[in-house]
């Protein structure tokens, strides 16, 4: 069931026409950033600014009501004190949706809150959904809609990223520019005056371009509603979260032990767990898990580990134990299959993690990967590689990609450790949706997010 709010959100991500109020040719302004980013958009674009006749060599309008055509999406980036007037015009124009970039509202104090409430009253009466105020804007990659003043345009992919902080989006876009994953939608939702986090969650639940949802969160507007909706959405699409703000707030006056011990962060952690949300500790961990989830299928617990170096295998096994990842024994049937290879037959122990030894050539990886994936209780695989003089990383990468096609429902994660000698192979792996991590701990943390919690 798609509710009416979700339906209305479609105007934000699939508009036919966009207007920017506060558009500008003056570089280093928000208005200029918006004009620059919207230039990629293929639909109709209109600029509104009473002080300029032309913007980006295109006619500029004094007021939104001067535009004849219907406008689906309006981006407002004007000083806070005139936003209310502008919103009135937009209501009169009956636009499809509003994004207010401007700050100086509820986040700034009582006076700002009053104006924000007036704006919400106006748009609610007009039935126009509003994102913000106090945000960076929104991005939808599939139709090249960049209605934000972010410094870069993101790669297309299937991660929907919701952030309470605009600057985190800016940093992430630059940081992820060389990564092999990309985004379906990016939303800076600001003060949540009207459309709130849960509305976006419901929208992304049904969004075909989105496979996984990532949230950067500071605080929630309505915890119980969030729990209800996140519980429902996480059953359909994984939700990964990074929560800022772990400090104890005002618990000193608590009259019970429960009161004194239940810091906000502990409660959030419990709520996320109950809602089936995957929690992360750092931005690196956040994107490591998002990458795994957008590239690979999820699976039940039970992973095989293949390595050509004992050290990497032991490190991985340690983290598996810490994180409750089961490493099933290699079955008798699998051992018979492995023993077809002369060199593997000579291995004194065949355990999981399976150490193929330092001199392992691609053929040995091939037999081991095929055998492990063929074992029923091994639900997914970690393939590790330490670069040694005879190792052929590119050939190993090709084998992984090929064999994954035979077992598409079993996730494979790789841990090719190194840089200069393995980068080409890593790029090949990731272009073919095998997520690589150059540290066993990161690989195992990523795997933990792929395991279906029962």
């Amino acid at each position, binding site marked *: 069931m798609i509710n009416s709010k979700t339906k209305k959100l479609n105007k934000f991500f699939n508009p036919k026409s966009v207007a920017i109020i506060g558009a500008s040719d003056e570089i280093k302004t928000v208005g200029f950033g918006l004009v620059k980013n919207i230039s990629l958009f293929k639909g109709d674009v209109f600029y509104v600014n009473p002080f300029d006749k032309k913007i980006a060599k295109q006619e500029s309008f004094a007021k939104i009501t001067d535009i004849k055509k219907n406008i689906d999406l309006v981006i407002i980036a004007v000083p806070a004190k005139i936003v209310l007037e502008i919103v009135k015009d937009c209501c009169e124009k009956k636009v499809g949706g509003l994004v207010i970039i401007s700050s100086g509202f509820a986040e700034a104090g009582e006076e700002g809150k009053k104006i924000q409430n007036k704006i919400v009253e106006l748009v609610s009466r007009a039935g126009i959904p509003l994102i913000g105020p106090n945000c960076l804007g929104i991005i939808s990659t599939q139709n090249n809609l960049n209605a934000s003043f972010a410094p870069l345009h993101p790669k297309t992919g299937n991660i929907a990223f919701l952030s309470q902080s605009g600057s985190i989006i800016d940093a992430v876009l630059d940081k992820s520019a060389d990564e092999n994953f990309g985004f379906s939608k990016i939303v800076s939702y600001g003060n949540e005056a009207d459309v709130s986090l849960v509305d976006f969650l419901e929208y992304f639940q049904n969004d075909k371009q989105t496979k996984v949802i990532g949230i950067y969160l500071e605080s929630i507007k*309505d*915890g119980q509603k969030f729990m209800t909706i996140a519980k429902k959405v996480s059953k359909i699409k994984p939700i990964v979260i990074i929560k800022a703000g772990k400090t104890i707030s005002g618990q000193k006056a608590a*009259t*019970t*032990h*429960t009161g004194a011990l239940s810091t906000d962060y502990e*409660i959030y952690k*419990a*709520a996320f767990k109950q809602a089936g949300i995957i929690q992360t500790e750092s931005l690196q961990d956040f994107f490591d898990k998002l990458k795994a989830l957008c590239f690979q299928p999820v699976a039940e617990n039970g992973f095989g580990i293949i390595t050509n170096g004992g050290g990497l295998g032991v490190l991985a096994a340690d983290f598996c134990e810490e994180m409750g990842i089961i490493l099933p024994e290699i079955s008798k049937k699998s051992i018979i299959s492995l023993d077809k290879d002369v060199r593997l037959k000579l291995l004194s122990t065949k355990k999981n993690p399976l150490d193929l030894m330092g001199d392992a050539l691609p053929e040995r990886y091939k037999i081991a990967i095929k055998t492990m994936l063929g074992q029923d209780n091994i639900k997914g695989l970690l393939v590790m590689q330490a670069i040694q003089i005879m190792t052929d990383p590119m050939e190993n990468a090709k084998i992984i990609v090929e064999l994954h096609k035979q077992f598409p429902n079993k996730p494979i994660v790789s841990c090719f450790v190194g840089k200069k000698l393995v980068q080409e192979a890593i790029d090949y792996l990731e272009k073919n949706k095998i997520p690589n991590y150059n540290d066993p701990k990161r690989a195992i943390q990523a795997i933990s997010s792929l395991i279906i919690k029962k």
Partner: protein
Amino acid sequence: MEILSFEETKKILKKYKIPFCRTEIFNSQEKALAFAEKIKFPVVLKIHSRIIFHKSDIGGVKTGIQNSEEFNQAWKEISTNSQLKNIEGILVQEMVKGSELVLGMKRDNQFGPIVMFGLGGIFIEILKDVSFRIAPIDKKQAIEMVKEIKGYRLLEGYRGKKGIDIKKLTDLLIKISNLAIKEKNILSLDFNPIMANDKEVLVADFRLII
């Protein structure tokens, strides 16, 4: 904000079938002693007040009372310490052996009622080894809560010491969760300690805040 009276507390505990150590409230030393002799020593004496939140801080608790002599001495001390002001009476309670556990509930502005579980004593005071869930919780979540604390292995039994009845413990967690959902006038509660052994899990100290 005040503590629920003893009679009201007892009513709530019975309504939700929450098992607690045999306890009665007295203002008469003579009747109190008769009750202690009936339930058999050792017993605990402690004040019940609607406004005193930390009763041991004012010398309002005496444990391990072995006979009538010690009982009379303890009664006198508690009466002097509390000056019998602002108290409903003195509770006489049976002493049950076992591991000390803590269960609690509070209402959070964001998420509503929260249930907490942990081991008592230093585990909660110093190590803060506790787990939380948002109510309501089901059986599966109650088991998760119990297993989540670092000290869980102590509850399973170790070095010849018998473990506690985990089923009775998880039942109790679910009962508190139900209570939290239904009794909206109870703002928070602490059961600290709860005495648990291989046969029973009994609330020894209760504080329901209204």
